[in-house]
């Protein structure tokens, strides 16, 4: 396969605003390098841990190690890092984001400098590492292992969510309280590292910007119910950078405002991603195949467009009660509300919050078929896909397909197998529309 020609990631009719993301990604690492020079503190961190605003408020420059792994994959420069981690004794089934991070830090330690030609100049040494138990296990364990390669104060916070069947009124207080104490602990850690007290006003400001950006992002996705689809998933997988890696900044707000205007214009004027949109696909879950994002264009060659995704914009805007006046309380409440948003619905219907969310999407976005991406090295986003697919099938009759590879490890990807399945998936969609 001629990889070079296929590492294109944007669709023919992607949004123009999405093209501004690439420089934003570059800036993440540039900012970190500059910070090191100007004596600002840099932190290895895990996005979507609900603590992003705290770092912004404390002027700590976030260095998202997972994103770097995805970047390496998109640039098809992941093998040297993966292999290095494996040579250091890490299993080939361990989270490939972690393997890339560990491999990168290992190589940098051995060389005494950033490995030549690392994508976007590589990651500078962090002043601290901040993990979290949000989403998966490696996200709090990874940095502990990283201490093999670099000495930096390390801290992780718990992010807890109750099961859907829990009596929310019974458990709410202690869940929120624990969450608050976890954030509080992080703040104390950061204060120790930066030798400055956290300014609650700055935190409020960061939260305001963060929520504003996420509200806009939500509004943009709502625009995507339009037929034909005004914005493809390829764009989603780049524009999420603003929401996750620029959380709590004006830059993210401005970006989404601009994107909103463009998507709105396209929706109003029926400008679709592809000329004749035949099928609208829901990206049902799983991390994207960063190594092969062009595969979405392959779907489009059959008139199938990915209308919406169930990944990255992990939660809808929530309404924190007005009696909450402390920003840390606010974060704790927001975390709780985000985690339990679909619990009530689930209890009344399928018992599964994700299924409820997907059913809503399928209805609102006139979805014709669902695709899941199983990643061999990602337990958190993969285990349960089959279950959700099965449960979903009980409430709606749509062709669904689970493609298997990995978010970055190309060794788990088989183009031939994917194309065979995509072909059949398209035929299944066609067969379904014929019957109607």
């Amino acid at each position: 396969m001629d990889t070079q020609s296929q590492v294109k990631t944007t669709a023919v009719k992607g949004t123009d605003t999405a093209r501004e993301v690439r420089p934003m990604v570059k800036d993440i690492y540039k900012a970190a390098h500059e910070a090191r020079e100007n004596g600002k503190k840099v932190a290895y961190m895990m996005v979507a841990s609900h603590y992003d605003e705290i770092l912004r408020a404390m002027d700590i420059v976030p260095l998202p190690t997972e994103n770097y792994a995805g970047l390496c994959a998109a640039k098809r420069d992941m093998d040297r890092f993966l292999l290095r981690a494996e040579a250091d004794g890490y299993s080939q089934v361990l989270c490939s984001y972690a393997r890339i991070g560990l491999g990168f830090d290992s190589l940098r330690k051995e060389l005494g400098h950033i490995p030549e030609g690392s994508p976007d100049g590589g990651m500078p040494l962090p002043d601290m590492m901040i993990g979290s138990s949000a989403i998966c296990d490696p996200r709090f364990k990874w940095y502990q292992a990283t201490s093999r390669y670099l000495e930096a104060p390390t801290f992780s916070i718990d992010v807890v969510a109750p099961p859907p069947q829990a009596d929310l009124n019974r458990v709410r207080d202690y869940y929120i309280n624990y969450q608050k104490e976890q954030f509080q602990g992080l703040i104390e850690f950061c204060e120790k590292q930066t030798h400055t007290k956290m300014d609650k006003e700055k935190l409020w400001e960061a939260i305001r910007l963060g929520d504003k950006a996420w509200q806009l992002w939500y509004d943009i996705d709502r625009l995507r119910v339009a037929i034909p689809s005004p914005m493809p998933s390829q764009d989603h997988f780049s524009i999420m950078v603003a929401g996750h890696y620029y959380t709590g900044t004006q830059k993210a707000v401005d970006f989404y405002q601009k994107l909103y205007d463009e998507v709105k214009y396209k929706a109003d004027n029926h400008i679709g991603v592809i000329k004749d949109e035949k099928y609208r696909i829901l990206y049902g879950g799983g991390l994207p195949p960063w190594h092969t994002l062009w595969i979405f264009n392959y779907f489009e060659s059959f008139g199938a467009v990915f209308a919406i995704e169930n990944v990255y914009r992990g939660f809808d805007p929530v309404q924190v009660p007005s009696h909450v006046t402390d920003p840390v309380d606010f974060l704790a409440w927001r975390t709780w509300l985000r985690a339990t948003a679909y619990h009530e619905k689930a209890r009344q219907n399928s018992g599964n919050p994700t299924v409820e969310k997907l059913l809503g999407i399928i209805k609102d976005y006139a979805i014709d078929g669902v695709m899941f991406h199983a990643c061999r090295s990602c337990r958190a986003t993969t285990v349960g896909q089959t279950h959700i697919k099965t449960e979903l099938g009980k409430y709606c009759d749509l062709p669904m397909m689970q493609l298997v590879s990995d978010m970055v490890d190309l060794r788990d990807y088989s183009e031939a197998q994917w194309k065979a399945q995509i072909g059949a998936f398209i035929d299944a969609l066609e067969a379904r529309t014929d019957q109607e």
Partner: protein
Amino acid sequence: MSVMKKIEAIYNNRGDRARELHDAGEKIIGYFCCFVPEEIITALGMIPYRIQGSQTEAIDEADALLEPMACPFARSCFNKALKGEYKFLDGFVAPHSCDTIERMYHIWRANTPSPFNHFVNVPHMMGPSSDAFYKNELLYFVSCLEEFAGKKLEIEKLKDAVNLYNHRRAKLRELYELRKENPPRLSGTEITKLLVAGMGIPATEHIELIQEFMDEVRKRPIPEPDGLPRIFIWGNEIDDIAFIQLVEDCGAHVVIDDLCTGTRFFWEDAPKTDDPFDGLVQKYLGTHCPRSLSTQVGEREEDLENRFGYIRQFTADWSAEGAIFYIVRYCDTCELEGPDLKEYLAKQNLPVLMIEDDYSTSTIGQLRTRIQAFLEMMI
């Protein structure tokens, strides 16, 4: 019949005793891992049952519902459930040990629900706020279980239960003392049978077995020195003798372990506290599992000592000469912990063999060569 025969009978027919009790009207509460206090279940007059998989049965049914990149131990347990082998469970309790167990709880519950189903959230972080949270989770668990049991939990009964399980822990530690002998009069294989057998029967019955076995061992003659290496085993779930037996067949004594199915679940007592729940929190959150993150202490050296000091104690006190890691594949936290522990033990000049396995006896053949070579290397 000899005590080993008794133990083997239970080991070979796991679940039979629980099934019997269930049919006799007792309530059997199945649970996973080392984070669900058996004391609570017992105090409410029910019988805890530690859910196990099967390394000899191929996983088939579960593949239709659970991705193959999930921990094979979890898949194997679920596979048994789907085949109706856990019908005797009146309750199903899963702690938030790790991603896979958490995901599986929901899938299990949706496909083979028990009359009672509950999920206990367990903090990954350690600290005062975590203790408070876990205590609240336990109290919530109690209230749900009370509802199911149709009775209130009596603090005195809970204290009795704590004593009961501390008694069993003491007995097991006493038994482990015997493993310090060189050569030991009891094999790791025997211990594994005894421990696994104990997971499916009431604690009182297990304690009798332990005592009987210990008495029998004490009567055994002191064997001649054989110069075989003494091995420490680290890993997660080993609820089948196949692996330990293989190590011993290759010419070694397995003398001490840090396994979910070994010291990890019984080594520490639940301290006696005015509020017994405080003791339970200390004991269960104190469990040494890679899924629990200890707060960083100082520079790496110091931090490793803080994380693994207890293992150095084990290997020193039981004079282990080599360590074998048995990691059930897809256990992310173990995969991340392994290299750190290997580095730590290497500094104690303890050779390490790291094995990543699929929780299936069929792969034993190939493991034999590695283990034998490892032992040859140590001579």
